[in-house]
Every structure is written in C-alpha cells, then in structure tokens.
C-alpha cells in the first residue's frame, strides 16, 4: 500500500474509533434515561421516581387479574420474578394483554404503593409459532396411545 493511502486508512480508522468511543461514553452517561421502563424490583426498592410519571415493565402474574366493580378498572400484579407491584388501570387494554404477558405501564405510584397506570402497552416476546406447536409445548408429555374418545 502506498504511504499516502496508508495514512488515509489510519486517519479514517482513528476517526471511526474516536466517534465510537465518544458515542460509547455518551450512551453510558445517559444509560438510565435510555431505559424505557423500570422493573418491579427497582420500584419496590425505591429506585423509581416517587412523585413523577414513569414506566413500569414486567409480566402479568397468573391469576392476579381482577376487575373490582363493574367498570373498566382492572387490577393486576406485575412481576420480574423477584418482586411484585400492584397495578390499577382504567381503560381499554391492548390485544396482547393477558396473564403471563409482558406489559409496560405508564403512570405513577400512589401513597399506598399501588401503581396507577394511565396507559398500558403490551410487550410482545420474540417467539413466533403456530397454535398447534404452542399447544404441544404446554403438555410436553401428551400420552400418544390409549386415548380413544
């Protein structure tokens, strides 16, 4: 390689490395703000903002969804498999809302420690499969013989 080209290659590598380093530092310092939501663990431990709106993300605990009264209010628990937070929401839930589903709720904590949500978004996971495959995953040991009905 000619010296002039070598020098340009070096300059360009330095430029890209410098830009990468600067971005890495910037992202590191903004790390907390780039988190789209807090897990329930942070909320229970008091790391989440007290009197401000924030987002809470977690799995809806199986069997925890209840509707007090006849209105559109729903109460359910969110978990990150470590801690649980009670969430209350009045409004229309997205299609994917169901027990065991990942959810991101936007709202604030009330003095009783209940998270009052203004908006509930469903977080889809990365799994795609036909319904039959899902059904067979639920019962891994389906007996294959002697089930004449």
């Amino acid at each position, binding site marked *: *390689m000619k010296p002039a*080209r070598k020098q*340009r*290659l070096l300059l*360009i590598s330095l*430029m*890209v490395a410098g*830009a*990468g380093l600067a*971005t890495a530092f910037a*992202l590191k310092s903004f*790390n907390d703000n*780039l*988190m*789209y*939501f*807090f*897990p329930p663990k942070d909320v229970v431990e008091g790391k989440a903002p007290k009197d401000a709106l924030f987002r809470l*993300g977690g799995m809806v605990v199986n069997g925890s969804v209840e509707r007090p009264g006849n209105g559109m209010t729903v109460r359910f628990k969110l978990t990150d498999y470590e801690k649980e937070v009670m969430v209350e929401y009045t409004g229309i*839930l*997205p*299609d*994917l809302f169901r027990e065991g589903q990942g959810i*991101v709720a936007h709202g604030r904590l009330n003095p009783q420690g209940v998270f009052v949500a203004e*908006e*509930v*978004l*469903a*977080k*889809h*996971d*990365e*799994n*795609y*499969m*036909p*319904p*039959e*495959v*899902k*059904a067979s995953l639920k019962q891994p040991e389906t007996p294959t013989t002697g089930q004449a009905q």
Partner: protein
Amino acid sequence: MFLVPDAVVRFFHRMASPPHFYAFTERLMPWLTVIFTLLIVAGLYGGLYLAPADYQQGDSYRIIYIHVPAAWMSLFIYVVMAITGGIGLIWRMKLAEVILISSAPIGASFTFLALVTGSLWGKPMWGAWWVWDARLTSELILLFLYLGVIGLYGAIDDKRSASRAVAILALVGVVNIPIIHYSVEWWNTLHQGPTVTKMDKPSIHVSMLTPLLLMALAFKVYYVIAMMLRAQVELLQRERNSQWAKAKALEEGGL
C-alpha cells in the same frame, strides 16, 4: 493484498473502470431480475398463504415478512455505504463513490418501510403507534442519517468533493449500526429481542422462518438491482464527457 488470488484482484481492477462496470451490470440485470421474481413470489406465497397463523397474534404477525427484511436491509445498506465510503476515501476509487450515493435513497426507503410497518403493527399489538424506546429511536436516527447523506451530496456541486463529504458522514454514522442491533439487549425496550439473528436457535417456527429468509434474500437482490440501475445513471452523468458514455447515449437513442 498478497493473500488475494490474482484473478480476484484483476476482477476488481476491471470493475473499477466505469465502462466495464456498466457493461457488467447490463449483462447481470436479466439474471438478477429472474432471481428476484422467483424469490419474491416464493417468499410472499410462503409467508402470506402457506405459513400458519401465530398462536398469539393470529394473522397480524405476517407483517414480519416485510418489516424484518426491510429493517435488516436498512442496516446492511448503511454498512455497504460506510465500506464503500472508506474505499472511496482511501483509494479515491470513483466506482465506490458511485455505489455509496446510489445506495443512499434505497437504504432510506427500506428504513422508512421498516418504521411504517412497525408502526402499523405496533398500534394493535402494543397499543401505541410510536414509543421512544431505544430501538425505535435509533432506527429513526438511521433514517435521518440516510437523509443527511442524500442532502449533503445534493448540496455540494463538485461531485468528487461531495462524495468525500458523504463518505465521512457515512463512516461516522456507522457507530449507530451496532447501537440499533444491540439496543434491545442493552436497554429495556418495548421492542422485542432478536428472533433470528442470535447465537441461539431462532425462536420462530421453521414453517414461518423459511418464507422470512426467502423474503430477506429477495430484498437483497432487489437492492442490488436498484443500486445498479441508479449507479448506471450516476456513472453516465459523471462521465458524460467521456467517449464510452457518449457512445452509450447514442446507442440508447439519447442526446
């Protein structure tokens, strides 16, 4: 340079000459068109008809066959632009500059397509058209980078110096590419994690994965076709005073 076989080196040297590249793309075009047609028909038929519905999302998930290949292409084309930008800066190779600028509008279109299809899917599934999470925001920045490249190139009259400017922009912007890819792992995002491009086995059923990969290949071939067509025009414009370009124009019935 010494590890590369002689024939490959010769091929690249010939390709670096605009008339050779032009003739090469013209010869390749019918083949690419046939391959693209086969892939897109097979991919769409497999994705929209053969593939089963999803256990949770029903038929809505089928937007994946446009959204995911478009998003992959948006990253891929930007990497191509950064590499050709580097080659153009270091070796002052005209063809690399032409490929860079011919790729930009195609990449911008794919990015736009990924953002729009994602938004259309997000409303019924998540409950929101748009959220400012790390994945969506970094992809939007990618769109602005593409538009910046196109705008910067158009703003400078001398196309050689314009190419040098956009090459630097493309190279600096390439830091955004790993951020987009890893955003779903580094931060809590509403956007789901990777389904196919992870070390583990893909978490999508094979009957759904096959059409997705076919669509991804079809989009790749489409990019090559569109890029070559744009590169042909760009080359003719840049070389309009040269003998071969004049001959080409006469042959096409132009002038």
